[in-house]
C-alpha cells in the first residue's frame, strides 16, 4: 500500500512539474509584463519594477528560481496586486470556492444517488423517466444557463435570494444549486445504470433465495455494490465543478478562485494565472489520488501489488 501511494505521489509530482514548466515557458513567450499593467512609469521606475519581479535575469535563471520557489510553496508575486504573493491571493479567495464546491459535491452526489436509486427501483416507471429526464437535462445544459435562470427567477423576479455577491449563507444557495446540477445528473445516471446491473446479478438472486427482504436487497446488497464504482466519476465531477466555479462565481460575483482567475486573465497577470493554473492542477491530481485510495479502501476486491492496479 505504501509503495503504491509513493508511486502515485511520484507521478503526481512529475505531472505538476511538467505543468509548471510548460506554463512557465508559455508565459515567457507571451508579450506583457508588470509594465503593461502600470504603464505610466519612468525608465528608472521600470527598472525597479523589473528588478522586483526578477525579470532582469536570463530566462533559465528565472526558471530555476521559479521552480525552487514552487518547491517551497512560493508561487511568485502578482502583477495586478502590487507586492502581494500569489499564495496570499489564493488563500484569501479559497474560502468561498471551497464552500461552494464542497456543498455542490455533497448535496449533488446525495441527491443524484437518491434520484438514481428511485429510478432503478421503479425501472421503466414514471419516476424512472422523470429522473432520467433530469439527468439528461443536467448533463446537457451548460451550468451558466442554469445559473442565469436561477438568478433571473429566484433572485430578480421572486426576490427569494440575493442576486449576487457574498456574505451570508443565503448568498451561497443559488451558486450552489447552479453548481450541483452537474454532479447530481452524473451521479443519478451512474447510480441508475449500476443499480440496474447489480439488481440483475446472481448474488441478488442468492440473497432473495435466502429470504432477504426487498429493503435489504436494495440497501444492503444492491446499493453498496452499485456505489463503489461511483467513486470513479468523482474525478470528472471535480473537473466539472472547477469549470463550473469559473463561470458561476463570475455570474454571482462570488469572490472566489474562479472569479480571480477570469479577472487575472483579463488583466494579463501572469504570475497569478500560472499560480492558479498550478493550483487547479494540484487540486485535480490530489483529488484523483484520494479517489483511487478511497476505492482501494472500500472495495475489498482490489488488492494492491505496487504495480498496475
Amino acid at each position, binding site marked *: 500500500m505504501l509503495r503504491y501511494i509513493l508511486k502515485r505521489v511520484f507521478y503526481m509530482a512529475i505531472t505538476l512539474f511538467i505543468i509548471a514548466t510548460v506554463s512557465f515557458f508559455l508565459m515567457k513567450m507571451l508579450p506583457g509584463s508588470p509594465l503593461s499593467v502600470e504603464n505610466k512609469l519612468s525608465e528608472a521606475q521600470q527598472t525597479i519594477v523589473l528588478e522586483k519581479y526578477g525579470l532582469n535575469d536570463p530566462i533559465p535563471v528565472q526558471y530555476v528560481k521559479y521552480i525552487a520557489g514552487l518547491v517551497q510553496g512560493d508561487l511568485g508575486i502578482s502583477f495586478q496586486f502590487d507586492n502581494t504573493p500569489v499564495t496570499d491571493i489564493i488563500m484569501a479567495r479559497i474560502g468561498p470556492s471551497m464552500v461552494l464546491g464542497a456543498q455542490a459535491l455533497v448535496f449533488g452526489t446525495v441527491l443524484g444517488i437518491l434520484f438514481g436509486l428511485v429510478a432503478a427501483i421503479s425501472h421503466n416507471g414514471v419516476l424512472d423517466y422523470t429522473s432520467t429526464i433530469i439527468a439528461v437535462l443536467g448533463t446537457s445544459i451548460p451550468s451558466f444557463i442554469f445559473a442565469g435562470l436561477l438568478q433571473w427567477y429566484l433572485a430578480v423576479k421572486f426576490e427569494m435570494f440575493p442576486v449576487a455577491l457574498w456574505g451570508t449563507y443565503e448568498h451561497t444557495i443559488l451558486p450552489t444549486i447552479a453548481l450541483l446540477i452537474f454532479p447530481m445528473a452524473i451521479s443519478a445516471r451512474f447510480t441508475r445504470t449500476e443499480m440496474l446491473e447489480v439488481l440483475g446479478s446472481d448474488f441478488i*438472486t442468492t*440473497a*432473495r433465495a435466502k429470504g432477504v427482504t426487498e429493503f435489504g436487497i436494495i440497501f444492503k446488497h444492491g446499493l453498496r455494490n452499485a456505489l463503489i464504482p461511483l467513486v470513479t466519476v468523482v474525478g470528472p465531477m471535480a473537473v466539472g465543478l472547477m469549470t463550473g466555479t469559473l463561470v458561476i462565481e463570475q455570474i454571482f460575483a462570488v469572490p472566489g478562485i474562479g472569479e480571480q482567475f477570469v479577472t487575472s486573465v483579463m488583466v494579463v497577470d501572469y504570475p497569478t494565472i500560472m499560480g492558479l493554473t498550478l493550483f487547479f492542477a494540484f487540486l485535480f491530481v490530489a483529488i484523483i489520488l484520494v479517489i483511487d485510495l478511497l476505492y482501494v479502501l472500500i472495495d475489498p476486491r482490489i488488492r494492491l501489488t505496487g504495480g498496475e492496479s
Partner: protein
Amino acid sequence: MSKLLEVKDLSVSFNTYSGEVQAVRGVSFDVEKGETLAIVGESGSGKSVTTKALMQLLPKPQGQIKSGEILFEGNDIANYSNKQMQKIRGKDMSMVFQDPMTSLNPTMKVGNQIMEGLIKHRNMGRGEAKQKAIDLLEQVGIPHPMLRLNQYPHQFSGGMRQRAVVAIALACNPKVLIADEPTTALDVTIQAQILDLMKDIQRETDSAIVFITHDLGVVANVADRVAVMYAGKIVEIGKVDEIFYNPKHPYTWGLLGSMPTLDSEEEELFTIPGSPPDMLNPPKGDAFAPRNEFALEIDTKMEPPMFKVSDTHYAASWLLHKDAPKMEPPASVKRRMQGFASTDDKDGEE
C-alpha cells in the same frame, strides 16, 4: 411417505419484445421427504425456469407463472405475496446456484452472508449466528472456518465458494433444497466433492433435493427419481433405474445415447440432430417430432399425453399407444442400457 412438494400443471411465460415465450408448459411432479429428484434436459428446456418459479425468483416483471399450483406441505404457494415468500425462502426452501463465481455478494464477508438467513429466520443474535456459521462452514468442509468467516468471496477458490453457497442454503435446515446445476461450473474433482457433500447432508437432515442438471452421469450418482424435460414439458419421469434401464421416450434414448461411458470407446456416440424449438412459437403436436427419427404422423398433429409405463414411470410418446407400431431404441443406445445394467451404479463418479 407424504408429498412434501407437489407441482401441478405449472406454466411459466416470459414477456419479451418479440412476444410471449412459453418457457414451461404444464409441468407436474412431486418430491417426498429425503428424496432426490433430478430434472434433466438440454439448455433452454425450462428446467431452470421451473425451479426458479418454485421459489418465485423469476425475473420480474417479464417472468410470470401463468397457471398451475405449487403445493408445499399442502399449501399452494404459487400465489403467495413477496412478503409471504420471504418467510419460506431460505427457511423451508433454499437454493444452490450454478455459478459460484457470481452467486456471492462480492462486497460482503462470507460469514455475514451465511448469518443473514439465520438472523432473519431463526431470530438468532449475532453471536449465536456466528457460532452456527462456523459450524456450517465446518460441515461443508471448509478448513479454518473462524478465519474464513471474515474473508470476502474473492479470497475463496471456486470449489470453496460453492461450499459457501451450500452453507448459505443449508443454514436454516430447509425442507427442500433446490440445486440448479450446482456442479456445472466446477472442475470434475470438485464436482464429486460437492455431490458427496449434498448427499451427506441429505442423510443427516432428511431434506428433499430437486437437482437440476444436464449431466446424466451426475443423475445416476445422486437421484432417486428422474424427470426428463424437453421444450418446457416433462417428457418422461420415473425412478432412476427405470429411466436408465428401460427408457421409453425417444428423447431419453437420445440423451442416454449421447452420454459417453468408459466402455464406449469403439463405438460412435449417438447424437440428437437439430436444436430445440423456438419457444416463442412452440410447434404444433409433439415438440420433439422434427428431431425424432421415430416420429409418427400423429406427432405433427396432436401432443402426446403421459402414458403410464409402471406405477412410478410415465412417458409422453405416441409410441406407447397400444396401436402404435412397436419401435426399438437404436442398437447403440440399447447396448448402452445393457451396460448400465451390468455395471450398475459403480461407475457413477468416474
